[in-house]
């Protein structure tokens, strides 16, 4: 792999760009590996990378049923933040934000992480109190947070609809270090870096059957032959239940729901932060502007369980209404495309990263709305779990037994209704 640096850019500028090597190999599957990660999204690729980098494992395969980054890694709104409050979640997401801050250097690949601030509009005194508490709690573990008055907000983002009678804007709560990253770059960066450490990335390799023996998984049947793994990790957000049942492990505290995202035609610079409209009762809507100029936005789930990667029209309408409510200047923009991703919505809105009833199987699932931003830390802690065969202290409660113990990591305080944990 040719490293990206100023000298190589200069050299290849002179020799017609002929000096670059492939970004990652396209190897044939071996019959067995020390670790097999099922799922070639950001979480799976990051896990393989950190296993190789930190835990000296190099005989690793990442199995992807389609092409890497074609699932939820390519179906998100690319927001990175760490404004979580529950113990465990707070440390985890702050860690992920710190990994993002250095990811481009770490991977030698520009993931275009832009810390442009995450601005949550406040519409009621109750929401203000709740958010002030949340952001003060976050500060205990080193995350940053600011409360902006209406005057400051108006100065920073003058073109919002401040004349909203039903949901008046009182101010904003802000995380300046949060922002956006480029999703494809993160996928390609992790794939390239993992590959250079010896990881086999096997695309078009769908797991179709699982053979168990003596309380562990003996082999995985795939569309590219049987593959054995001394250790196996599932990181297949959306279809975790399907794989879990393929291994005859029963039910999970997860429902699969679809979440849509939308992209408009490109315009000149209009919004230089990630803007959130409506939490605390009004709505749920988030919008930012991509580097190409498109407005990227999304909101609630489609509300009914689904494995279909396509969205439905009432949600398109609702998101359009939210966009118009907060930024009426968007009214003349046309939608270029919209899509849906299948989410693992968990019973308390938090993820699972744990050992399983099978000795050599490890689970990484239940990411709800938090999957994209979580991916670096997800890979970091999942690799740590697989290599050391015990959960790190930060994720010690992110297991399947937490419900019977009464440990609900429920950020919104909604209760066991997965569709409500948006």
């Amino acid at each position, binding site marked *: 792999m040719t490293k990206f640096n100023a000298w190589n850019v200069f050299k290849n500028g002179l020799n017609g760009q002929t000096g670059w090597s492939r970004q990652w190999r396209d190897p044939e599957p071996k019959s067995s590996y020390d670790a097999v990660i099922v799922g070639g999204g950001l979480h799976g690729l990051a896990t393989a990378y950190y296993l190789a980098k930190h835990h000296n494992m190099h005989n690793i395969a990442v199995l992807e049923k389609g092409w890497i980054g074609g699932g939820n890694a390519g179906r998100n709104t690319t927001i990175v933040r760490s404004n979580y409050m529950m113990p465990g979640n707070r440390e985890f997401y702050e860690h992920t934000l710190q990994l993002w801050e250095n990811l481009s250097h770490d991977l030698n690949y520009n993931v275009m992480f832009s810390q442009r601030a995450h601005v949550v509009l406040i519409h009621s005194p109750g929401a203000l109190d709740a958010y002030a508490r949340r952001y003060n709690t976050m500060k205990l573990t080193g995350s940053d947070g600011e409360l902006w008055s209406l005057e400051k907000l108006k100065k920073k983002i003058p073109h919002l609809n401040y004349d909203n009678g039903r949901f008046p804007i009182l101010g904003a709560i802000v995380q300046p270090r949060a922002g956006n990253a480029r999703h494809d770059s993160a996928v390609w960066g992790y794939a390239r870096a993992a590959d250079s450490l010896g990881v086999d990335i096997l695309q078009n390799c769908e797991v179709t059957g699982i053979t168990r023996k003596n309380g562990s998984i003996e082999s995985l049947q795939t569309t590219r032959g049987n593959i054995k793994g001394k250790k196996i990790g599932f990181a297949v957000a959306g*279809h975790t*239940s*399907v794989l879990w*049942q393929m291994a005859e492990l*029963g*039910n*999970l*505290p*997860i*429902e*699969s729901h679809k979440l849509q995202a939308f992209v408009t035609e490109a315009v000149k610079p209009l919004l230089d932060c990630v803007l959130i409209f409506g939490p605390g009762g009004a709505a749920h809507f988030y919008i930012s502007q991509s580097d190409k100029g498109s407005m990227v936005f999304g909101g609630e789930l489609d*509300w*009914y*369980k*689904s*494995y*279909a990667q396509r969205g*439905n*029209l*009432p949600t398109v309408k609702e998101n359009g209404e939210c966009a118009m409510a907060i930024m009426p200047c968007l009214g003349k923009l046309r939608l270029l495309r919209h899509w849906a991703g299948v989410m693992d919505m968990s*019973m308390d809105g938090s993820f699972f990263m744990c050992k399983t009833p099978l000795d050599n199987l490890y689970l990484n699932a239940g990411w709800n709305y938090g999957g994209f931003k979580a991916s670096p830390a997800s890979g970091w802690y999942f690799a740590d779990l697989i290599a050391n065969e015990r959960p790190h202290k930060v994720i010690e409660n992110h297991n399947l037994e937490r*419900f*019977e113990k009464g440990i609900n990591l429920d950020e919104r305080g909604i209760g*066991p*209704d*997965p*569709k409500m944990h948006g």
Partner: protein
Amino acid sequence: MILIKCPYCGERDHSEFSYGGDASIIYPSLDAPQEEWVKAIFFRENIKGIQKETWQHINGCRMWLEVERSTITHEITSIKPCHKNLQKVIDN
């Protein structure tokens, strides 16, 4: 748009309805062991295929319906009132 044929009101857009959730869950008796309650409240089969679920016609007759729907294609194969006695009234 999913079209849901309400037994009381006829065929309507799904935006008139509110999604309830998995209708296959049978809640255990009040004095059942804790494990049974944990399973009923927190664990789901999460079927990829045809599943039984509830919808409420909130912007119509407000009745609860039991619907069989594919979670892959969203095609609905059966709709009946959740309340068994109401089904009898419709049948008569």
